[in-house]
């Protein structure tokens, strides 16, 4: 008896909710529901292909998410969109390819590490490339902040924004001078073989995809621990909430901001190397498009919100893959940005809200 009453009241509440909602949001829910149903029909028809595409989307999305974190982290603290971040990511991939080549400034340090090297050397090479790129990009990001953003901290927002765009071009041109205008190839250190080769042929999941997840997840956990669990993380949260009050409490604001940029740069370096190893090529203007996607992901999830950046990135990856499979490659950008516009129309603060990254990052 009571259960039916409860069910009834819940139903009534739902009905009230629908009555209270606007036509536009009802329409949006209907569209999303229709799309999900269409996708599910496809999934039932050819589950193997659907799962393969889903996995491709998650992997591509994970890379975007890692870049997006850099945007969102910095935005959460200084409310600046660091446009140079995408190009720092490109520099990260260049650093990675240089480390693997074993030669820098004409000096040969060790033999190039490529597809022919032994398994142990490959692993060491990948870890070395990641670490060097993370350090280099972290320092570059801190340097950019010190040189280009810090002196402008009290100027109008627009001035810093233009400076950020300027830094983006400077880094891009440095990349152009360093490695030239062509796509350059990354050594194939990670196997292209399918993990499920012996089990099923329907689903393609390569060691490369696993590699991306193996790099991304620890970085996410580490970042989240740093912000929630350490003293420095607490300082970051405080600075994000109120710079002046934080300074009065004895927090070194400048250092805290530098740390945020350092973290952003480290993520950019890691994702740069990962991108190169995963895709096999990199190019000097890579940062623009990938940065744009990552920035979109950050806005989609709610800028300043760490969980939001990850959700946004993976969502963009999945939408891209599904669109490639079922609609057509030439519509990918149209679809991704249509989704962005729709999300912003109905949830102007992004999917998870733009709460500051450092207040613990997301989670309602």
């Amino acid at each position: 008896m009571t259960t039916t009453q409860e069910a009834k009241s819940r139903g009534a509440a739902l009905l009230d909710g629908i009555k209270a909602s606007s036509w536009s949001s009802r329409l949006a829910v209907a569209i999303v529901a229709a799309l999900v149903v269409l996708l599910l029909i496809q999934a039932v028809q050819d589950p193997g292909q659907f799962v393969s595409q889903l996995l491709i989307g998650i992997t591509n999305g994970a890379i975007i998410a890692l870049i997006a974190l850099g945007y969102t982290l910095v935005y959460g603290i200084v409310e600046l969109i660091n446009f140079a971040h995408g190009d720092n990511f490109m520099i990260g991939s260049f650093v990675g390819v240089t480390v693997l080549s074993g030669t820098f400034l004409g000096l040969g340090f060790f033999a190039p590490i490529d597809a022919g090297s032994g398994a142990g050397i490959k692993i060491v090479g990948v870890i070395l490339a990641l670490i060097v790129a993370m350090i280099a990009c972290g320092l570059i990001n801190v340097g950019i902040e010190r040189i280009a953003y810090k002196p402008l901290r009290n100027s109008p927002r627009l001035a810093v924004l233009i400076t950020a765009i300027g830094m983006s071009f400077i880094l891009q041109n440095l990349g152009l001078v360093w490695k030239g205008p062509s796509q350059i190839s990354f050594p194939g250190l990670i196997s292209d073989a399918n993990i499920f080769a012996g089990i099923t042929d329907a689903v393609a999941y390569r060691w490369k995809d696993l590699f991306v997840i193996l790099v991304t997840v620890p970085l996410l956990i580490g970042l989240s621990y740093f912000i929630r669990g350490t003293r420095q993380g607490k300082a970051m949260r405080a600075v994000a909430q109120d710079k002046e009050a934080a300074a009065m409490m004895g927090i070194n604001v400048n250092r805290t901001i530098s740390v945020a940029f350092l973290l952003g740069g480290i993520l950019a370096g890691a994702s740069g190397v990962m991108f190169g190893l995963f895709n096999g090529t990199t190019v000097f203007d890579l940062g623009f498009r990938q940065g744009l996607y990552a920035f979109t992901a950050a806005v989609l999830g709610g800028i300043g919100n760490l969980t939001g950046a990850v959700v946004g990135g993976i969502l963009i990856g999945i939408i891209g893959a599904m669109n490639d499979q079922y609609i057509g490659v030439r519509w990918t950008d149209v679809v991704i940005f249509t989704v962005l516009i729709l999300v912003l129309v109905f949830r102007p603060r992004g999917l998870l809200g733009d709460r500051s990254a450092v207040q613990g990052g997301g989670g309602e």
Partner: protein
Amino acid sequence: MGRRRVGTIMALGVAAALFVAGCGGEGGEQGSGGGGGGDDPTATIVSDLPLQGSSRARQETIANAVTLALEERDYMAGDVQIEYVSQDDATAQAGKWDEARCAENAQSAAQDEEIVGWIGPYNSGCAAIQIPILNEAGLAMVSHGNTAVGLTKPGGEPGEPERYYPTGERNYTRVIAADDKQARAGATWMSDLGVQSVYILDDQETFGVGMADQIQQSAEATGIQVLGREGIDGNAANYRSLMAQIAQLNPDAIYFAGITQNNAGQIVIDKVGAGMSNEDVLFMGSEGILEEAFIEAAGDAAEGSYITFSGLPASELPGTGQEFVERYQERFPDSELDPLTAYGYEAANVLLDAIENAYNADGEVTREGVLRELTATRDYDGVLGTWSFDENGDTTLTELSGQRVRNGEFELDRVITVEET
């Protein structure tokens, strides 16, 4: 009467010169220069090439070839003193040709009456912008590298080629075979290799889309089933989803119509990565990816790719072509000859001969005269063999070639002869 007028003008000129000299002292040369002009006919030719970005190496050989052609004539086309200006239509940022630069180059050349001939451009997309501008100016163009069909004849998009020629008069020619021939060569080659179905990708540029249309027609005409057609985004991070989708269709071949700079390397990497090795599913592309940059970007994945070229590589050229190769290597020992270089040389020579003929016929060099002589070129005996421009400004050459990537280098696989339509 005429003599008296000249005398009057000269007197005025001298008076003006004295006046100017009297006033400022520096302007004196200007006045006397006016009197001495008109003895030596001079003319300027320009080349318009993407000299930045990854096709730089290839395009520099073209500028070299034009220089060589001029040096061999002592910078004279008959009695006409020639000046040569090499223009760049690429930007460092884009790493390839840029629409704004193409338009700007054409507009400034259109203003400069001294310019009577135009060599290039290389990219068909750039040509689509430049031809209408230069058409209004009546400037003769000869391209070494544009292969999009629609530039000269129907078969491309609706409204082509008329929309490139607002004056209704043709001003554009090319020494390289158009894509309809290259597509026929590609389809013939695929069918020789036993291909029964193909998936076509294009890079959504003028050249890529036109080439893809042509290959689609030729493949269907040859009895090869076209499983699908997709336009890719040249800046995408990867094409894994697309390749996973194509792999489902089990094609015998994947054809990429586009240029290296639109991520051709990544396409092959992802094709192979999706389980379609170059042995099982052959990869064919056109001239747009016949450059080192493609092999550099794709790495091992490029191995075994098939690439068609709208002409013959230097090694297959007739005797005069071989002599050119020797002269080129002697003059530019540091520059590696590209398959297109001979076409740049031929374009320069055919233009210079047209200037010479125009001067001999008219007694002066005008854009009109050069254009008339250029389009009238018939049975031209050059480094590419003996050929003519047809009524559309296209070459009558019918020998094309197919290259394969082996051990990280392009290697001539075969010469493919196509029929004239």
